[in-house]
């Protein structure tokens, strides 16, 4: 059973939830400490994040750059609007493909759940079309490994 849920809400939102076996403080740190973020926010097999800059303060900026080691890469930039250690992060981000995608407004909550954490990430896109484009194509990069696995199964 997967611990992750991903669903659309209303016309412009996507909500992801996931439980972790660590307290909110640790999960929050793993989202704001660049040396930790670089270890897990990687997408498909073979991709790395050589650049991870995080100014973890309201108004601070961040930049993530991914490379697949075969000459392909892309990056995301964003700004933090609110940071409430260790319970809540609000930020905006956009992906460069290479043109910037419309801003994705993201609220991430870390709620204590027994001895662990329930993370709730609520993405709000500017309009229904942008959300549709993100769901249909924007996350495609993350799909490559899944496709490879799917092909292996057929």
């Amino acid at each position, binding site marked *: 059973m*997967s*611990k*992750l*849920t*991903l669903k*659309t809400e209303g*016309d412009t939102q996507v909500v*992801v939830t*996931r439980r*972790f*076996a*660590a307290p909110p403080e*640790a*999960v929050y*740190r*793993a989202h704001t400490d660049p040396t*930790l973020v670089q*270890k*897990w*926010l*990687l*997408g*498909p097999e073979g991709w790395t994040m050589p650049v991870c800059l995080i100014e973890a303060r309201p108004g601070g900026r961040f930049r993530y750059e991914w490379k697949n080691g075969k000459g392909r890469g892309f990056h995301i930039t964003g700004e933090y609007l609110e940071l409430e250690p260790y319970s809540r992060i609000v930020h905006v981000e956009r992906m460069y493909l290479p043109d910037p995608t419309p801003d994705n407004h993201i609220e991430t909550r870390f709620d204590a759940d027994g001895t662990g954490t329930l993370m709730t990430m609520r993405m709000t896109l500017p309009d*229904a*079309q942008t*959300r*549709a*484009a993100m*769901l*249909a*194509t924007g*996350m495609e990069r*993350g*799909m490559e*490994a*899944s*496709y490879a696995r*799917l092909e292996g199964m057929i």
Partner: protein
Amino acid sequence: MNEGLNLDAAFSALADPTRRAILARLAKGEATVMELAEPFEMTQPAISQHLKVLEDAGLVARRVEGTKRPRRLAKAGVEAMDQWLAMLRKALERNYERLDEVLAGLEQAKTKRGEKR
């Protein structure tokens, strides 16, 4: 993926609440345009317009029965969308499985520090 399905069009089609309601109705069984228009305060041409978007996206199919054109869910299209969302979940899950390991590492480091004290 499924030939009748255009994912871009399918997700755009789903962005509209009326179209989602139409799909929910069709999930219960076949219906004519008139039957579909009934619960909405909309004209039949307006509903037909929404149905066209859903048909173009590969989510709704029609058959001919005399003068009627009853619509039904295009099961293959809806299943393909489900599959796509399942793959998105899977890709995200890979990241979070790595995060589980990072968190376990943090916990271990903390325990070690505790032991030294």
